[in-house]
């Protein structure tokens, strides 16, 4: 595979073509916060915690989700600017009280908003794991928009192999409390 060279937080990084920015950053020890990412699963791009600022070699600046954006030759990436920190703080506030893992790091101690519909952050880790790794398809999202919530496929209580592997993936405890 061809390698491309880019710059992350001022450091020169080499990564194989098709690698995501998140993985390229991790490869040199730069940590980017994530809520819906799991290396065993397909990138999802739902939580938006991993947003970073990029500038292309032709000078275009934008915000992208590093878990899905592929590396590019000459790209300049900044993973911890005030702008992305502001986005991350807002995400933590909006998901409050679930998903508090990064609260301390980002100085969030509470939220201006009332909680959403469920205590689940809808990161999709459990259902993606059940679908992609276990090939069981026992969990799905019901409804859309602000009505979206996790649900067990009818009869799953009986057919779920109860491997419990999704319990440990869940940051909010939703799945363990239902199974």
């Amino acid at each position: 595979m061809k390698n491309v060279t880019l710059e992350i937080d001022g450091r020169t990084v080499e990564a194989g073509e098709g690698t995501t920015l998140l993985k390229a950053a991790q490869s040199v020890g730069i940590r980017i916060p994530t809520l819906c990412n799991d290396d065993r699963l397909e990138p999802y791009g739902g939580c938006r915690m991993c947003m970073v600022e990029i500038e292309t070699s032709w000078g275009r600046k934008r915000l992208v989700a590093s878990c899905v954006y592929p590396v590019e030759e000459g790209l300049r990436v900044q993973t911890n600017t005030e702008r992305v920190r502001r986005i991350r703080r807002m995400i933590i506030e909006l998901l409050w009280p679930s998903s508090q893992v990064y609260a301390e790091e980002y100085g969030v101690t509470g939220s201006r908003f009332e909680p959403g519909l469920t205590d689940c952050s809808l990161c999709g880790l459990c259902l993606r794991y059940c679908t992609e790794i276990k090939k069981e398809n026992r969990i799905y999202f019901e409804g859309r928009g602000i009505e979206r919530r996790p649900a067990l496929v009818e009869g799953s209580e009986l057919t779920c192999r109860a491997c419990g592997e999704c319990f440990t993936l869940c940051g909010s405890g939703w799945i363990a409390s239902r199974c």
Partner: protein
Amino acid sequence: MSRIETPADLARLRDQAVARRNSRGTWVAVCAGTGCRAYGAEALAESLEKEVEKRGLGKKIGVRKTGCHGFCERGPLVVVQPSDVCYLGAQPKNVPAIVDKLEGKDAALDKLLYVDAENGKPLARLDEIPFYKHQQRVVLGDNVHIDASDILDYIAVGGYAALAKALSGMTPEEVLQEVKEAKLRGRGGGGFPAGRKWETTRKAPGEPKYVIVNADEGDPGAYMDRSILEGNPHGVLEGLILGAYAIGAGEGFIYVRQEYPLAREHAQKALDQAREYGLLGENILGSGFSFDVKIHRGAGAFVSGESSALMSAIEGHVGEPRPKYIHTSEKGVWGKPSCLNNVETWANVPHIINRGAEWFTGMGTEGSKGTKIFSLVGKVNNTGLVEVPMGITLRDIIFKIGGGVPGGKKFKAVQTGGPSGGVIPESMLDLPVDFDELTRVGSMMGSGGMIVMDENTCMVDTARYYMSFLAHESCGKCVPCREGTRQMLRILDRIVAGEGKEEDLAVLEELGDFMEDASLCALGQSAPFPVLSTLKYFRGEYEEHIREKRCRAGVCTPLIAYDIDQETCGKCGACLRACPVAAVDQSADKVFTILQEKCIKCGACFTACPEKFSAVIKVPAYAIGKPSAGNPPPAGKQV
């Protein structure tokens, strides 16, 4: 009927189709678009057919059910050809008189003619009526001339000539070049140059390639694409085949939303007929080019109009956007290069190939060429579909074509671009309408919805309506869109209920910026626009709701109360009879009052009060001794 093997076959078939049309001297085109159907157009057409038959005129006069003519406010619409005399609001009872007139007899039909608002004179011909006169109907123009379920009608008016021209005399590169030179931009919202999109798909590695029609039109109040697909499905199909030829695609899809049954029916019929005549399938017109199309029925989600979500849906998955830093034009359906354009974009293509890029770029502005169809709705006299050259001003559309605001009310704003667009205030009415200008002022072209609002429209309530729509139509996958719309909606709900807080506006703006920056797809990125644009141009209204607990438009029910003006009250008792909860009290000397503690603010009394009295009025809730907690209102303010 036989398969058309060559362009010469097509020309012969066209001659036959024209001869068939010309065998009758007069045609009566009855609009059978969705709006006119609701007005009873089908019964009208049937009644016309029977009357013509009864009088033995079947060989002279033909009746044709066509697609939408556009002037929906005044349906059912009837246009007599070739004279182009236009009857508005025609009913089956008018049929004998209409047929009398067609026979050359005297008939009193003035009531069905358009009356000039300025001098009261009737205007008979389509091209005299201001609503049509100021339009430039390139894409919609054929609607009035063809029966959508008959391919020969389309062929008679020149249909598939562009395809024959391209397949017999142009290389795919030349077709692509023509579209690029025409500077056609996508009509679905973003305004991305169609030629460049086609080229990306053409050059992208991977086979097969797909071309797709996006007919998932979902903006509230918008029905342009619906009317094109219902009224002229072959026009869209011809554009799609031309695109497939230019791009090198062998298969196409028409993604039609579930809620458009007639569009789906007509599109399916068009595909069947085109296949029968050999205009779809193997070796089209003997050119060696093969292409076929399937219809995919949407399952009723607004977000499925987003390209990656639409393609997920075609694959059989839930219609949810995917993170796409690689465009769907390179990796779309099943990871193959897929070129998606909306209905109106495809429908423009045959015209460009027929008349050339130079003709097309002769219309419009520097950055936006050609025409654009808008659905002009809301508080405007002439509701309907209008097609205008790019660059026309909003004022011309709303006042010259739309006939202004009804009931002598004052114009307040126009909302363009659907839920992702924004509102434009009166001070910007002279804005030339094109992709870049609308974006510059904080709205967007979108697919072409244009909702006119008058002084009785509350801008906070309008923003709340759009936010509610988006919060429920978001797919819910990413946090900024799902949680952002949720919290914005909660704040707006509070403000319209009179419970807004001073800091709410700053929080709305902060959430808006965040959603624009961080959302996964364009739906979430643009979801805050209705709120941000009303905040920008009508901030005062928000502040009145929050600080004074006052809704100047009298829309937000928690902030208003109904009262009876004793000076103008005619003592007719209409309000008392209309009230469903017995909240109107009548004293012995016939003084009517509203019992506020019983009133549910349904507005029935307000509607029932005769206009000559207009005694039932809306007043601020606080004005009748019900000030909202914690914020005593300033005295003497009127709604």
